């Protein structure tokens, strides 16, 4: 065995280059930026979830101390609306507001408090309208978007009001009967990404009509594509730079301050900084779709699934964002990683006057995993089969066909994940008495242990890697080789904390055979698009682009050995095609590129008297293809698991008539050190044939499954159905 010099190549544990500046407090996040002569921007937002705007009077605001600009929709020089996929959202409200917190006007002032106080002086007269606040009633309420912005994109033409997208997957004999049938209705609350770094950024005018925007985002080039038309200037005059990103989880796919900052900067000809506070952040980004799911699972007496029928309703909130894709993903992964010969899966996303929903880690698969895994446990009980055995009996494997008709050609080690997770041994039951911190209720010291029941839950979840349904999904990378042997990589892949910068460097070192590689700052002006840091795609896509660019650069150096080499390459994954709008079946070989699975075992304790819970231990086995950096992979599994645990136990955006009532970390709780148990993870390395180095993405599968797995453990401890997450103490104690 030869041991080569540790360069930090693919497969090694490599310390992140951004860790030292981050631990020293020197890493520049988007909210840390400053520029000489800088102003502060502030956004006036709607206090109503649905209202007509009668008038806006800014005259008192413009005369307030320190104020340099007050802007309304009249001041948007280009397109008045924008959107990640459909331009249905006004830059600033025009004649109506459709959600609580919708931006109405902007202020720039010398001090942030001056900007806030001036915004209070803007007089907006609203005529409040009835809010469409219930996702089922939305289908019978007046259309919030009568022009139907998602029409004409190849989706099923649904005539019902307020449909963003309706998709029905009809597979096999949709009426096929089994020997047994179990039914259930499930609800999932709306989750917030709750990244710790609030929306923020700095817009700097270049003095020639253009602007540089330094912002925390997930996709630089798609930001630019939305910003420039609204400013009415060419793409080349908008340069987006990646500022330090304090977490993303889908919540930075849509724009926040980008256009607003640029408008104020160009208007005042001064740099303008925006920093949302936490309350504003809750209205400043899209959320995870709340969902209602009706299911029926039919199976043979020996446990083989025969037919799954599901109806999925997703509340998309006021604007389209990525709801069309979320609705599709929810349907595609609805039955879980199981072979299902017959299925009818209907998925509908609707507009309401609730907070807009879009991308969040797991992207539709989280909601359906919670429902379908509860169904699998019900089925196991009805058949008196061990829940793990039932899952193994139905586990998808290469060659099987998905409900969309797509045959699995790549890696699909579902059974391996199930066996590995099932084999993990949880710690022994802790004896009483114990430190209260190790009991449900924790430091609240609410029990001596009487009434505490222990339960073990198991669940499996999966989803797609990368963009689907015919999206032209690509990533560019540029490599420069210098005569001194050093190299520089340019890639606009957003480092959002997930570690893609390290992946890029590991790939470059591996391909170039040198440790002397640096990664240039991410920006739009020096390299083509990397696509989004979303859909667990960035490792795969950036690896492919950087690998190809490195190899091309080395070839070029063969031809021109003494010169500086500069090569840019574009990488694309295997092509996908849309789903048929009538049948939900594939129209080519595949609608999704590849899949990743995570199986999870959870031990939880429940104080059945008080309804308080404590997750004791989590074991996970995840299908990752290949670990580029095993330590970072573990970190993704642990962190992704925590977010799913949060949805299972505590996280929900509460609304009343569309108004958010818990927009703070006092009222919206996320897991703390006292909530998170140890997570033991097993990495299943079954290389993906189409992926560079065989590496799949790792970010989402643990989040997809952990909500379902934690809920299963609570059910095992209590014997209750617990068909809604987050599970509230009342759901247990008062049942």
């Amino acid at each position: 065995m030869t041991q080569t010099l540790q360069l930090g190549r693919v497969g090694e544990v490599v310390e992140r280059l951004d860790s030292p500046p981050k631990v020293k407090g020197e890493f520049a996040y988007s909210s840390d930026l400053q520029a000489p002569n800088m102003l502060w921007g502030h956004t006036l937002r709607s206090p109503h979830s649905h209202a007509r705007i009668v008038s806006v009077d800014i005259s008192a605001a413009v005369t307030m101390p320190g104020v340099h600009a007050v802007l309304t929709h009249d001041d948007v020089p280009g397109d008045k609306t924008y959107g990640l996929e459909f331009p249905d959202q006004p830059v600033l409200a025009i004649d109506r507001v459709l959600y609580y917190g919708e931006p109405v006007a902007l202020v720039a002032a010398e001090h942030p408090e001056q900007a806030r106080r001036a915004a209070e002086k803007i007089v907006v007269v609203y005529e409040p309208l009835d809010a469409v606040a219930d996702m089922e009633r939305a289908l019978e309420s007046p259309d919030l978007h009568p022009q139907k912005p998602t029409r004409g994109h190849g989706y099923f033409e649904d005539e019902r009001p307020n449909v963003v997208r309706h998709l029905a997957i009809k597979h096999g004999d949709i009426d096929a009967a089994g020997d047994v049938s179990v039914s259930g209705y499930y609800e999932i609350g709306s989750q917030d990404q709750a990244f710790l770094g609030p929306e923020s950024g700095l817009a700097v005018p270049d003095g020639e009509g253009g602007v540089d925007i330094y912002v925390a985002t997930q996709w630089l080039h798609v930001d630019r594509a939305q910003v420039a038309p609204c400013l009415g200037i060419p793409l080349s005059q908008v340069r987006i730079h990646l500022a330090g990103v304090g977490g993303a989880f889908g919540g930075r796919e849509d724009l926040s301050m980008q256009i607003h900052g640029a408008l104020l900067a160009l208007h005042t000809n001064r740099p303008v900084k925006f920093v949302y506070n936490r309350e504003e952040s809750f209205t400043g980004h899209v959320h995870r779709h709340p969902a209602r799911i009706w299911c029926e699972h039919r199976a043979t007496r020996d446990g083989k699934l025969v037919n799954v029928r599901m109806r999925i309703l997703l509340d998309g909130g006021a604007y389209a964002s990525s709801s069309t894709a979320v609705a599709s993903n929810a349907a595609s992964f609805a039955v879980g990683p199981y072979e299902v010969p017959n299925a009818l899966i209907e998925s509908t996303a609707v507009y309401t006057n609730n907070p807009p929903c879009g991308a969040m880690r797991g992207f539709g698969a989280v909601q359906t995993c919670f429902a379908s895994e509860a169904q699998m446990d019900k089925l196991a009980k009805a058949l008196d089969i061990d829940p793990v055995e039932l899952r193994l009996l139905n586990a998808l494997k290469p060659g099987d066909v998905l409900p969309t008709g797509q045959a699995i050609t790549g890696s699909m080690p579902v059974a391996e994940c199930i066996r590995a997770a099932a084999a993990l041994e949880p710690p022994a039951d802790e004896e009483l008495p114990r430190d209260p911190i190790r009991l449900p209720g924790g430091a609240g010291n609410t029990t001596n242990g009487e009434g505490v029941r222990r339960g073990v839950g198991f669940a499996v979840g999966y989803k797609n890697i990368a963009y689907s349904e015919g999206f032209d999904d690509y990533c560019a990378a540029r490599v420069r080789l210098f005569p001194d042997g050093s190299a520089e990589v340019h890639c606009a892949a957003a480092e959002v904390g997930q570690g893609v910068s390290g992946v890029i460097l590991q790939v470059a070192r591996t391909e170039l055979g040198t440790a002397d590689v640096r990664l240039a700052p991410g920006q739009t002006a020096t390299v083509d698009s990397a696509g989004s840091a979303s859909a667990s795609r960035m490792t795969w896509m950036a690896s492919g682009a950087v690998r190809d660019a490195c190899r091309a650069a080395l070839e070029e150096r063969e031809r021109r050995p003494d010169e500086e080499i500069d090569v840019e390459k574009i990488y694309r994954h295997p092509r996908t095609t849309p789903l048929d709008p009538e049948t939900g079946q594939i129209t080519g070989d595949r609608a999704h590129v590849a899949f990743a699975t995570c199986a999870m075992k959870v031990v939880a304790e429940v104080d059945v008297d008080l309804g308080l819970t404590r997750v004791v231990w989590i074991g996970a086995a995840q299908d990752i293809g290949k670990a580029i950096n095993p330590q970072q992979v573990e970190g993704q599994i642990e962190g992704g698991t925590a977010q799913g645990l949060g949805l299972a136990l505590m996280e929900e955006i509460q609304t009343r008539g569309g108004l958010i009532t818990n927009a703070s970390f006092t009222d919206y709780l996320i897991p703390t050190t006292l909530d998170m148990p140890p997570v033991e993870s097993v990495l299943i390395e079954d290389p993906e044939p189409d992926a560079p180095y065989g590496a799949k993405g790792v970010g989402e599968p643990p989040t997809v499954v952990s909500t379902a797995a934690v809920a299963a453990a609570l059910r095992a401890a209590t014997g209750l159905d617990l068909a809604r997450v987050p599970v509230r103490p009342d759901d247990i104690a008062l049942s």
Partner: protein
Amino acid sequence: MRITVRINGEEHQADCWEGESLLFALREKLGFPGAKNACEQGECGSCSVLLDGTLVCACLVLAAQADGHDVTTVEGLAQGDELHPVQQAFVEAGAVQCGFCTPGLIVATHDLLKRNADPSDNEIREALSGNLCRCTGYAKIFDAVHLAAERL
């Protein structure tokens, strides 16, 4: 008003509006952006600093209250390029992802290990329960605290 604060051993002055928090003054006026602005209401610990040696959320302290006092921020822990053992442990353990919570956790861990050189798992969990992290699930943060405790 003008305030004078001794930050990481050196005196600094700033002109502040009376309503400004110590966090805002540190970040925007005094050149110490290490303390982070995640919730600005004392729930997340991202802005943890030591005020006269006591761990506080800088967002809950008025800048004016810090006038004439000592503040230690995350920027004051490393000796030049040499990381503080707590910082080094966070790097090695892989406890840093997006890193927005990291400065607060570093200061809180430093404070914990000053008071308790060999904390138990329960003591670590309780001591750091006011520091939210959204990325890591805390596992590698616990590893880092144990590693730092072994070395200090």
